[in-house]
């Protein structure tokens, strides 16, 4: 099984680990793991977009390390709102103009990415909030829903543009 699928499975395991009195550590790790499951799913497909065969094996890990969380979140927000704005790089603006209504599935994935990244940040760093089982379960379910939506949309031109923007957003924005 791939890393992203294993991570999603692990997130479900963690959220269901202690049914009666779940530990904060389990719930926080479940949320964080759900985010990384989606992160690796998208990074994996983005690498496959530019590499194949032995090149993917040789250079995939290096390419994967070039992704930055913040840029990926900004790119995802652009696809959620699906509108041109001064913050949206010219290249993405053109894509969004050409396809004014991104499919519901792609928006589901982009939204889940934005939401899960924020949830991951809170789960890993904000000790001022207390996680509840339903909160953690909602995050893990959101990752699962995003996986399903991605499977349906991944081969479309707009999904490929989304992957490219996840990879190149920083370059496009900062020039």
């Amino acid at each position: 099984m791939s890393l992203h699928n294993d991570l999603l499975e692990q997130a479900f395991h963690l959220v269901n680990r202690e049914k009666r009195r779940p530990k904060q550590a389990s719930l926080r790790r479940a949320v964080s793991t759900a985010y990384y499951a989606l992160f690796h799913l998208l990074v994996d497909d983005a690498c496959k977009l530019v590499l194949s065969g032995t090149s993917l094996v040789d250079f995939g890990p290096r390419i994967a390390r070039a992704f930055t969380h913040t840029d990926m979140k900004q790119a995802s927000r652009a696809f959620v709102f699906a509108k041109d704005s001064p913050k949206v790089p010219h290249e993405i603006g053109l894509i969004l103009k050409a396809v004014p209504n991104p499919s519901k599935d792609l928006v589901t994935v982009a939204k889940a990415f934005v939401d899960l990244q924020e949830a991951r940040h809170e789960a890993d760093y904000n000790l001022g909030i207390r996680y509840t089982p339903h909160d953690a379960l909602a995050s893990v379910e959101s990752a699962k829903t995003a996986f399903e939506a991605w499977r349906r949309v991944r081969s479309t031109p707009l999904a490929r543009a989304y992957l490219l923007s996840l990879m190149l957003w920083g370059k496009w924005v900062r020039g």
Partner: protein
Amino acid sequence: MAAGDFLLSLRTAARLLSPSVSTEGTRLDADHLTGVLRRATIWLTPSSVDGFEPHDLHKDFPELSDEDREQLIRDVAEFRRVAEQVPGDQPASKDQVEAALAPFLRILSLMQPYMEQFQVNNALRRGRFPSTVRDFAVKVGEDSTGEKAVWVWVIVSDELDDEDFKKGIVEIKQGVEDALRRAGIDLYPYVRFRTMAEQKELESSPVG
């Protein structure tokens, strides 16, 4: 609820200023607002701070520091003092406007996040949600990447089993987005969930 009345009074006063001055979104530009406040004086009335309860500040605005709470009490008292001197049948004088301007701007600035939260809460209460949704908790702030956002904790019924809860997540999240969009609120919503029992437990136990 005193805090709600107070925020409603402030919002009404802010709305009276000018359609271009919005305390409801992310726009509360101080320079612009100062200019508008100087031109129109309809805000200079004691009713602009109706509902203010100094004794409930800890409960109503727990995020404010002690210094901010003391400043708020001083500013509301000063604003009221000036506003009560304005004759009902005449516009405020230039001196009265100048005397009330600084405290009123500080009040608006301190209360802005609460006014936004108040507006989000109102929008959610007008929204369409499944009957399992019992309440909301709202917080406006900046997310981890510095973007302005709103966190909405949806409090659901204790009777909801895990399967029904999972089925309802998408619908509830969509309901939150629709409610905010209908109210013209341009804040990115992060939707979180709790049951009534979980909320009760959180309120009665320390963070950890």
